[in-house]
């Protein structure tokens, strides 16, 4: 066996010694042609006595230190046969198959090496974004402080580091017809729901995005409906959350180049759990969960309730309260609906402005908007005092939603409820709430029902069957 191989390499050596300098390997040329026009593509030929080695890589994404250490130095220091054996033994080696595959790998930071007629690719990717940053989008007081980095391998490492389970499955793929972004599908083989996994794979096959940089794009492309409001999958940058969800049988999709990980399927109530809930004693957790749902209810119904109670049923409150509301509204020339609508839109604008502005200015903007404008509006009699309190309570309650995508959805869904109350008062409020619940219950996320109370784990695990 080794004898035959030796003979073949001998033959190739004699061939190469004749025209090593003039004729380059056609596999290398094929790959180089596809990369024409990129000036950071490096093509080098090393010659040492009768040894020749050809290299092709992209300078900007390959680690030249590694190249020096792993390939160039051994090439000059060792014998020809030893170099061949050494190259074959490296774990970062991928054999050359087709020019397209080789080109993909070169674009991914591999170096194509042709030595003695053997072509192979070696992973010498240069990882720049490896530092792990603190989690800022979902912060916890006590609990893991770090977020994902922007590099796929580091992120996989962070997951493996927290979930040392042999059933953890990692499927690597490339998405984006042009960008060929590396993605990894991570799930627990023993717990994952097969149907969801199949749907996920199907969606990844069908997915037609050209350049993929962020998980948010996937949300758009994975969703069959164009106009959706409620997020049916979660994006998070907390490794502990991803591991927690994988352990619950969900699927995580990590996209190279962004710290945000896509977790599916997403259930409505998951969007209201903060990771901190896991790190607190049961009573504390229950209390804060209750508070969060109370806040959800308050932010959803209060605008509508205000309109319904001032315009339709002022008799609901105690007389003193009714009178003081009516008194504070006496100077206001609009109907309650417009008063509420103006105030809500003003708060939306304020929020949007403070997100877009640099941090140093946004504080000033909130002061001007919140304090000065609010004061001036009531003084001018455009908005009642009670209205300001209601608007502030609604805004504060909406901030309690821990996941951003759900926070936006909740903010928007208040308007239809407000409209229902404007036309139908308290009846409209009840109808709108029931309609919202049935609307949410009607949704699917990756083949799983989106909305149910997680009273028992059995419902999730047994599947729902029937109808």
């Amino acid at each position, binding site marked *: 066996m080794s004898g035959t191989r030796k003979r073949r390499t001998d033959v190739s050596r004699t061939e190469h010694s004749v025209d090593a300098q003039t004729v380059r390997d056609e596999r290398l040329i094929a790959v180089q042609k596809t990369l024409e026009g990129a000036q950071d593509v490096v093509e080098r030929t090393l010659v040492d006595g009768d040894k020749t080695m050809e290299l092709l890589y992209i300078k900007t994404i390959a680690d030249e230190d590694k190249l020096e250490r792993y390939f160039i130095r051994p090439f000059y220091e060792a014998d020809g046969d030893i170099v061949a054996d050494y190259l074959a033994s490296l774990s970062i080696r991928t054999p050359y198959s087709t020019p397209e595959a080789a080109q993909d790998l070169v674009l991914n930071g591999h170096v194509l090496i042709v030595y003695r007629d053997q072509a192979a690719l070696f992973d010498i990717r240069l990882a720049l974004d490896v530092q792990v940053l603190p989690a800022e989008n979902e912060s916890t007081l006590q609990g893991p402080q770090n977020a994902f980095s922007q590099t796929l391998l580091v992120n996989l490492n962070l997951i493996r580091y927290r979930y040392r389970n042999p059933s953890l499955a990692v499927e690597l793929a490339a998405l984006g017809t042009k960008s060929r972004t590396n993605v990894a599908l991570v799930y627990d083989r023993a717990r994952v729901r097969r149907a969801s996994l199949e749907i996920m794979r199907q969606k990844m096959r069908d997915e037609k995005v050209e350049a993929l940089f962020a998980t948010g794009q996937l949300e758009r492309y994975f969703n069959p409906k164009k106009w959706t409001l409620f997020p049916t999958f979660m994006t998070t940058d907390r490794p502990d959350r991803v591991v927690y969800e994988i352990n619950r049988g969900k699927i995580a999709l990590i996209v190279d180049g962004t710290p945000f990980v896509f977790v599916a399927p997403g259930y409505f109530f998951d969007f209201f759990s903060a990771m901190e809930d896991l790190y607190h004693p049961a009573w504390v957790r229950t209390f804060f969960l209750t508070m969060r749902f109370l806040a959800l209810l308050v932010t959803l119904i209060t605008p509508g309730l205000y309109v319904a109670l001032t315009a339709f049923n002022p008799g609901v409150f105690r007389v003193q309260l009714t009178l003081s509301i009516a008194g504070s509204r006496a100077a206001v020339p609009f109907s309650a609906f417009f008063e509420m609508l103006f105030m809500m839109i003003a708060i939306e604008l304020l929020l949007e402005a403070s997100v877009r502005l640099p941090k140093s200015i946004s504080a000033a903007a909130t002061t001007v908007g919140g304090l000065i404008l609010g004061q001036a509006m009531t003084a001018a009699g455009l908005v009642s005092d009670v209205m300001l309190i209601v608007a502030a309570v609604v805004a504060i309650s909406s901030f309690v939603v821990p996941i951003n995508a759900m926070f936006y959805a909740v903010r928007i869904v208040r308007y239809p409820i407000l409209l229902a109350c404007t036309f*139908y008062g308290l*009846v409209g409020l009840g109808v709108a709430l029931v309609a919202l619940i*049935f609307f949410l*219950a009607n949704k699917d996320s990756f083949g799983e*029902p989106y909305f149910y109370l997680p009273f028992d784990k059995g419902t999730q695990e047994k599947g729902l069957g029937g*109808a």
Partner: protein
Amino acid sequence: MQPRFIYYLLLVNLFANGIGYVPRILLESRHHGVFVAVALAWLVGWAITTASAMLFKRIPNTDMPSLWQSAFPKPLAGIIIVVFAAEWLIAGTLNLFLVAEISSKYLNIGTPGTDIILLFILLTLFAAHIETPKALFALELSLIISFPLVVLALLAALTQQGLLWESVFRLLREVRVPRWLDVSAASYVYAGYLNLAWFNRIVTSDYPIRWMSIATAGVGVLYMLFFALPIALLGSEAVALYHYPWINAANALRIEHAPLERAFYPVLIGYLNIAVLNTIVHWHVFLNFLRSLSPKQPTQRRASSEKGSIGERLRSAFGRHWPSGVLSAYAFLVVPGVFREWPMELIYQTSRLWFAQLIPAELFALGLGAWAVVRRDRSSGTKRRRRSTGA
């Protein structure tokens, strides 16, 4: 799915009817042994619930229409299904009338009742169309949101000063042979269990029968309380002066030290939500009863027929959607018209007729179910025997 959903079905029916039609019908004959009627109704309700629980345990993950279809010849099964679908449709509709009437009388005083009933119809049609498991999830959460409002009423009533319990006791002492209508109407609050005729296909029935007895007893106690409270609040004579005794009783409830003056509005909203949910459940059952009449299309054939000619596609679309068409036409054409034209008294008369046939209809349905199970077992038994002799 878990048996807990059965309790929601029971509770929705209890609250919707315990506040709706039933109290008025019962209070009219308050001097004719109404508490005897309530007690008898509890017995009847318990018997029917237990019997149907035993039946549903025999047919796990099957609904009544497919049971009937598997046991009876096709035309007969079709007739039975249509008759019982109509029962569910009428139950939902009567409920809807009352909800709309009460909303326009007490909550949205300016808005015409027809507007309000159209709003409820829109909601109910949409909600009745969603898949059965999802409908149950939504039912669960809506009920959990509305439930505290009604419980608030109970608490407010029980802590009320000056409750005239004496008038309740006086009525309790009047033991007479009750009217049939009273027994039948009072037994309606236990009928939520019968919605399992459809929901049994997804709700697992792996619970002991005695749970159902406990649940029925719980419903009975709650209902006794529900029924007695208006009498205690308004007095044994005045209570019959009102069209909606419970609503007026709630209007009399004061809450001390709260921003709200009266418990009336929370109770009303809670009741309206629960009653709408009740209509949604009933119409959902109706819709699916009708759907079970369409010939079952295997998914593969349906997929291929979607690529077929226009005629085929139309036919398959019609086959799938005609029950929705029937329900929508009924909801938009018949319901608002009847609600507009009929005086409330006529609607009450209809509800009396409907309540009077309730117990026989329930027994009939159960009997048919039991017979179907026997027939099915026997036919599968003969098949098995034939197969074994053939082998």
